[in-house]
């Protein structure tokens, strides 16, 4: 058998290049937790409206007591619900996506918010948006003849503005709640 020394060198160079790429990916994945959405979590797509987490009232942006922001979205032909969400810039946001019908995919151009939405599974992605602006959420997997029309909007605003807005809203919400309670007591 004859393998030219030059060819052997080239094989080593090729191996070196592959090893370099693989190491960068591995370092990012293992030490910086840069991973593709992979949470392997099942859900019954036919009963999403009955599930606690993805019931209509729980969709959209939710802030936990510790301040963590989770966005729960339902993909269904032909939109992502809720159709409009407002997010703070420079903040870690956890997206949880489910499909109520067929296969969808979603991405927000110029960001790394991208995932497939497979019926039967919850897709979870973490992202943050450095720059305020209007970000479309586009369906990127053929889901039927209305696929072109399947998109929703996310508005990313300054963190302070977002917090002020939220404080105002929750104050308004509290007032209504108190008013309701008072009227109930009467």
């Amino acid at each position, binding site marked *: 058998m004859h393998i030219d020394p030059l060819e052997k060198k080239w094989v080593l160079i090729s191996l070196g290049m592959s090893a370099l790429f*693989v190491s960068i990916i591995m370092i*990012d994945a293992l030490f910086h937790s840069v991973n593709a*959405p*992979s949470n*392997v979590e099942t859900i019954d797509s036919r009963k999403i409206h009955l599930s606690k987490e993805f019931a209509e009232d729980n969709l959209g942006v939710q802030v936990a007591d510790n301040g963590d922001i989770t966005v729960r979205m339902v993909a269904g032909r032909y939109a992502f619900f809720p159709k409009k969400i407002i997010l703070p810039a420079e903040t870690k946001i956890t997206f949880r996506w489910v499909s109520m019908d067929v296969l969808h995919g979603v991405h927000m151009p110029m960001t790394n918010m991208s995932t497939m939405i497979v019926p039967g*599974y919850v897709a979870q992605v973490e992202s943050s948006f450095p720059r305020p602006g209007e970000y479309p959420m586009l369906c990127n*997997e053929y889901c039927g003849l209305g696929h072109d029309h399947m998109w929703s909007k996310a508005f990313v605003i300054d963190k302070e503005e977002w917090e002020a807005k939220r404080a105002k809203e929750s104050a308004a919400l509290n007032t209504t709640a108190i008013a309701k309670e008072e009227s109930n007591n009467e």
Partner: protein
Amino acid sequence: MNNTTAKNLALSHMWVAFTAFIVACFMGQFQVLERSGLFESLTSISLYFTSVSTHGVLMAYVLTTFFIMGFGYYTASDSLKIPIWNPKLAWAGFVIALLGVVIAAVPLLSGLASVLYTFYPPVTAHVAFYIGVTLLVVGSWVWCGIMIVMFYQWKKSNPGKVVPLAMFATTANALLWLWTSVGVAAEVLFQLIPVALGLMDTLDPGLARTLFAWTLHPIVYFWLIPAYTAFYVFVPKQAGGYLFSDEAARMALIVLVVFSLPIGMHHLYMDPEHASGWKLLHGVGTFIVALPTLVTGFTVIASLEIAGRLRGGKGLFGWIGSLPWSNPMTLGVILSLLMLILGGFGGIVNASYAMNAMIHNTAWVPGHFHLIFAGTTVIMYFTIAYYLWPFLCKKPLVSNSLALVQLWTWFIGMSIMTTPWHVLGLLGQPRRISSVQYNNVLTMTWEPYEILMILGGLVLLSSACLFFYILVKTQFGATTEVFVGEVEYAEPLHEVKELPEYLNDFRLWNKVIAVLMFISFGVPILQFFFMDTYGSSAWGY
């Protein structure tokens, strides 16, 4: 030797392949015009997705499978100098596959199977579509069987001798296809057909995607191996030189076959139904399978350099100019390699696990695979056809210069079309949309690229028509000239007198593949039977 049967088989298969190709090219042109949104009269969402689905099936399944079978029959008979084993069976395989294409075409063309060539349930097509595709695959299995039988027939009557490289590559591809098609066959037989017939109420889309991913990566190597075969066995001789290394070619082919199989889950990087560890494992495998392509590039370019220098080329790059650029095979390989370099770069981006998030399911992806498949691979299908047609029809090629024009225009058209396609992907355009409906400023940046793509499409369509014309005119044109000659296989620089059995047979490699497939797909497939999963019912579209 009388190999009329092999010639007839080759011609019949290739005509089906190229007829599918030309029809699909017209559809491609319609699609690029439709999706630009500039021609209101052409706008039809249902027609667009009918067209996209048919274009995909014709190009990815019909052109490829029939071309590979036709090329394989001729290569087996011509390189081994033995007749086709069981010609009746071979013709039966042809008829089954063709019948499958016809059965699938009916629902496809009537808009009852607009599910794209990737199926992607729970959107469900008319059952005839799945049955047709299954028959096409069954027909191709007959071909695989005949290739393997002929490989061992020859080995038996030539004990200890080295199997000709052309047949080694063809058999490698037959084995690869048998392994590859298992995934999609399981999906179609156990999920899609039962649901389409109403025998099953639900299916698990996660499992379906995993089975399809089993097939989705190695299938591109099934399409690509004929191009590599031509690189190794035709190009060096046609360019006027020698194959740099026969052994390296065999090793590259083996690594290609073995490692293209256990890595399909890189198509599922963005899927929620698999854990990141499995995705990383398949990601590493993906970088291993880049190696044989890098080795192939090296061997082919080294062979070309030998040819260029033998023809009087001097200096570091002088040999490039002295290559026979007017030889279609030589021109074909140069253009093919150029597109492989660009497409390979894009492929590294796709393969890079987390970076893939930036381009996943965007216009970048069809841009990438048109460059690699419709560019690198199909341009070699053209050159193989130009090379073999005179042998098959016993008539000289109608015009060498027309063939050169056709190859150049294909390359130019593909460059004009795929460059803006990649850019559109980076600008966030999703793949698989028929029109831009998003009310967003971002989409305004897309328009100029759409127009460039139309131009690229027009150049490609003209080139495709020219290709078809050259083949028809060569075979049926009125000429009294008779072409005599034999296919010339490239000789290696160092003659190969004997080889260890692992480089001359596939038995060991089959076992290696079985182990690797169990490691990489065992748990990812079995998990669907251990988890509490919820099925999806069938949906229309």
